[in-house]
């Protein structure tokens, strides 16, 4: 073996020696989430070190359902996330399309404002949003309250603007020459071409809605109107509560997203990385 390939082997070995323990530490909380969700409560609170799954998952799901209507909350979370994703993808791609493909008065101002909101903490709008939705519109504990206020999304618009501005103009000009209306060009020419970007955006938006906590905690605080994370959050810190149940809930919130992540990793990563590559 040449000294060069020996050096290469050494470097490769070192790389894996550093990365493997770090990866195991990073996987540990997820692994323990699964392990806890399969253990009875007296197993979780025992002095033994337990690192392997048991067989109590279904019991824990039943315990969780006894503590809070988690199945109902999952139903709300899924419906809200699906509706939100559809509407948000539509709104942000329409706005992104306008910013990418038309010249109009006030364009620079619109872009500047959208950029400006990225660095503005959400805390600044939280209280008036709450007063408006809960008091002025009397929409607390409704789906509308969960879906509509988060529809403003600045990174999504910038992402779609980028996607549409990279398409060659001839594609659209050809349609225009034939007299096709602008909204038909958008719907039937531009959107299909942007499918990979739309997929990336949809995944990120769905995940954001699925995991959203603070806003749903404030606006939908009635038991029958809670999303799944909020319902689960109410149990944390209570005394007479099944921790196996809480962990089963955490698994039900997390594992579907992990599966989606594994299947659609490329879109996921594209969606997240897009924020930085402008």
């Amino acid at each position: 073996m040449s000294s060069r390939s020996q050096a290469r082997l050494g470097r490769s070995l070192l790389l894996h020696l550093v990365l493997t323990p770090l990866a195991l530490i990073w996987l540990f909380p997820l692994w323990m989430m699964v392990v806890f969700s399969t253990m009875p409560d007296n197993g979780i609170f025992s002095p033994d070190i337990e690192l392997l799954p048991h067989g109590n998952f279904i019991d824990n799901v039943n315990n969780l359902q006894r503590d809070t209507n988690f199945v109902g909350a999952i139903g709300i979370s899924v419906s809200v996330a699906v509706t939100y994703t559809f509407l948000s993808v539509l709104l942000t791609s329409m706005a992104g399309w306008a910013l990418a493909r038309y010249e109009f008065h006030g364009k620079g101002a619109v872009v500047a404002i959208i950029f400006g909101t990225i660095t503005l903490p959400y805390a600044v709008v939280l209280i008036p949003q709450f007063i408006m939705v809960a008091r002025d519109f009397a929409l607390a504990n409704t789906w509308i309250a969960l879906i509509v206020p988060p529809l403003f999304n600045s990174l999504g618009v910038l992402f779609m603007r980028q996607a549409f501005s990279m398409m060659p103009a001839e594609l659209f000009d050809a349609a225009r020459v034939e007299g096709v209306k602008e909204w038909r060009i958008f719907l039937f020419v531009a959107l299909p071409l942007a499918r990979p970007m739309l997929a990336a955006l949809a995944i990120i938006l769905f995940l954001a809605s699925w995991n959203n906590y603070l806003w749903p905690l404030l606006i939908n605080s009635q038991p029958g109107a809670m999303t799944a994370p909020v319902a689960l959050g109410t149990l944390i810190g209570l005394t007479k509560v099944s921790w196996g149940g809480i962990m089963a809930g955490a698994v039900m919130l997390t594992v579907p997203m992990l599966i989606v992540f594994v299947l659609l990793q490329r879109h996921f990563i594209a969606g997240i990385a897009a924020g930085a590559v402008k």
Partner: protein
Amino acid sequence: MRTQNATAYRFLTPYLLIFAIFWVWPIISSFLISFQATRTVPWRFAPTFNWGRLIGDPAFYNALKNTLLILVIQVPVMISLAIVMAVLLNSPLLKARGLYRFAFFAPVVVGEVAYSAVFRLMFSLDFGIINKLLNSVGLPKVDWFSNVTPAMALIMIAVTWRWAGYNAIIILAGLQSIPDDVYEAATLDRVSRVKQFFHITLPLLKPVIVFCAVLSIIGTMQLFTEPFLITERGGPGGGTETLGLLLYRQGFRSLNFGYASAVAYTMAGLAIAITLVQLWLTREPK
């Protein structure tokens, strides 16, 4: 190109409408509310009522101190870790790349509530797996929830676990956009790999790292769920109370919207100031 005002605004209107109602008006509104006494109905204009209280409020300084402490320790640690993850994941020598990527990127999809619950259980005093493992290698148990320093450390560990991979994804995308021939030239000139990292990679990554740092600072500035759920409402005794928690407590527990708005604007001011300093520190040399 001719202007297409009508068409453009037809596409923009729904989005701008949502923006106007749920962002523009609230930004103005919370500024105005911060100058009103909101504890009695009707609210009345009282310019120094909330801001005067804020300046003398020990609870505010405690939350500010904790938030800044988390900020100056957690963000640099996490960004450094994210750079290490991204650089190692980008190595052509890596085998089973998919597995490592999964390990570091998976926390990105985990919700705040789910992971807060797991961390709370893992770090509990007598039955937490972390203390059991510490004990099994001969180290003493740590009371993560009753002492301020370990409780703060726990919050930082949790946030770092959740967000390091997210930043690594962005940095990795930045790394992959650096053309290979830059390194080939350096390798031909016998520049060591460590030197290449510090003199080529890091400078080229600077814009991406600044972007990550700014997003992380704004995120950590508003930290709420972790001290709310993991250390139970900012415990022990306010030891992990953050500005986000103070805002929640004042706005939505005491229903004192005026004071909460003053806290919100303080957070915004800090975020903007830190962002500007960051951009200035990393400005392109002329």
